[in-house]
C-alpha cells in the first residue's frame, strides 16, 4: 500500500440531491484508507444538523426526472411530463418530490444521508463547520452532530494544500 492519500471537500449545498455526493465520497474515501475533511459552508451547514431536513428543489432542477417509486415496472419507468420549473412553485410539490426521491433511494438500496454521515463519523472523517456562515445564518455548534469542528478558510486551505483530491460540491 502506498502512503496515505488525503481528500478535502467543500460541501456548499443543502438539498437532498446535493447532500449525497460529499457523504458518499467521504465515507468511501475513508473506507479506502484516505484521510478526509469536509468543510461545510453556506447551505451545506444544514447537513451538520442533528436532524437533516434536506429536500429536493424541483423548481431549480428542470432536468430532474419525475418518476414513481411504486407500481408495475412500466409505470415506474414512465417519466411524468411535469414541468419542474412550473410545478416546483406549487405548494406541497417539493415535499412530494422529496418523499418520492427518498422512497426511490430506499427501493434501490441506497443508504440515507444520516446513515452515510454516521459512517463518515465512525470512520474518522473530520467535519468542519464554516464559522463565518454559521454566524451569518445564526447556527450554533450545539445544533450540530457530535464531533463537528469549527474553522475558517485558512483551516480548510491548510489541509487542502496537502490533499491529493480537492472538490467543491
Amino acid at each position: 500500500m502506498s502512503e496515505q492519500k488525503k481528500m478535502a471537500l467543500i460541501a456548499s449545498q443543502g438539498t437532498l440531491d446535493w447532500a449525497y455526493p460529499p457523504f458518499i465520497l467521504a465515507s468511501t474515501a475513508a473506507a479506502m484508507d484516505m484521510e478526509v475533511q469536509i468543510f461545510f459552508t453556506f447551505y451545506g451547514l444544514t447537513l451538520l444538523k442533528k436532524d437533516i431536513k434536506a429536500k429536493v428543489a424541483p423548481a431549480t432542477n428542470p432536468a430532474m426526472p419525475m418518476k414513481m417509486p411504486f407500481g408495475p415496472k412500466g409505470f415506474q419507468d414512465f417519466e411524468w411530463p411535469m414541468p419542474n420549473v412550473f410545478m416546483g412553485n406549487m405548494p406541497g410539490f417539493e415535499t412530494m418530490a422529496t418523499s418520492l426521491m427518498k422512497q426511490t433511494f430506499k427501493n434501490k438500496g441506497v443508504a440515507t444521508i444520516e446513515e452515510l454521515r454516521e459512517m463518515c463519523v465512525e470512520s474518522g472523517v473530520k467535519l468542519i463547520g464554516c464559522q463565518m456562515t454559521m454566524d451569518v445564518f445564526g447556527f450554533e455548534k450545539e445544533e450540530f452532530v457530535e464531533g463537528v469542528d469549527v474553522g475558517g478558510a485558512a483551516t480548510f486551505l491548510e489541509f487542502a494544500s496537502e490533499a491529493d483530491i480537492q472538490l467543491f460540491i
Partner: protein
Amino acid sequence: MNDSSYDQELDCKGMNCPLPILKTKKQVDTMEVGQVLKMEATDPGSINDMNAWSRRTGNELLSHNLEDGIYTFFIKKI
C-alpha cells in the same frame, strides 16, 4: 476459489453504491491478516469498485464471479 475456503461472509445483495464497499471495509477491519471474506452483491458497479478498493487498500481480491445476477467476491485481508 471454492466455497469452503473462506473465513467470513457478507451479504450486500440489494445494496447500492457505496454500501457494499463500506460494509466490506468494516468487516475486513475485524478480520485477522490472511483471512478470507466472501462477499455477495448485486450492484453491477461492484466489480470495478471492489477492484479499485482492493488496489487502494492493499487487500487482495482473490476472485470475482457473476452468476444469476449475483456477484461473488473473495477478498483476502493483507
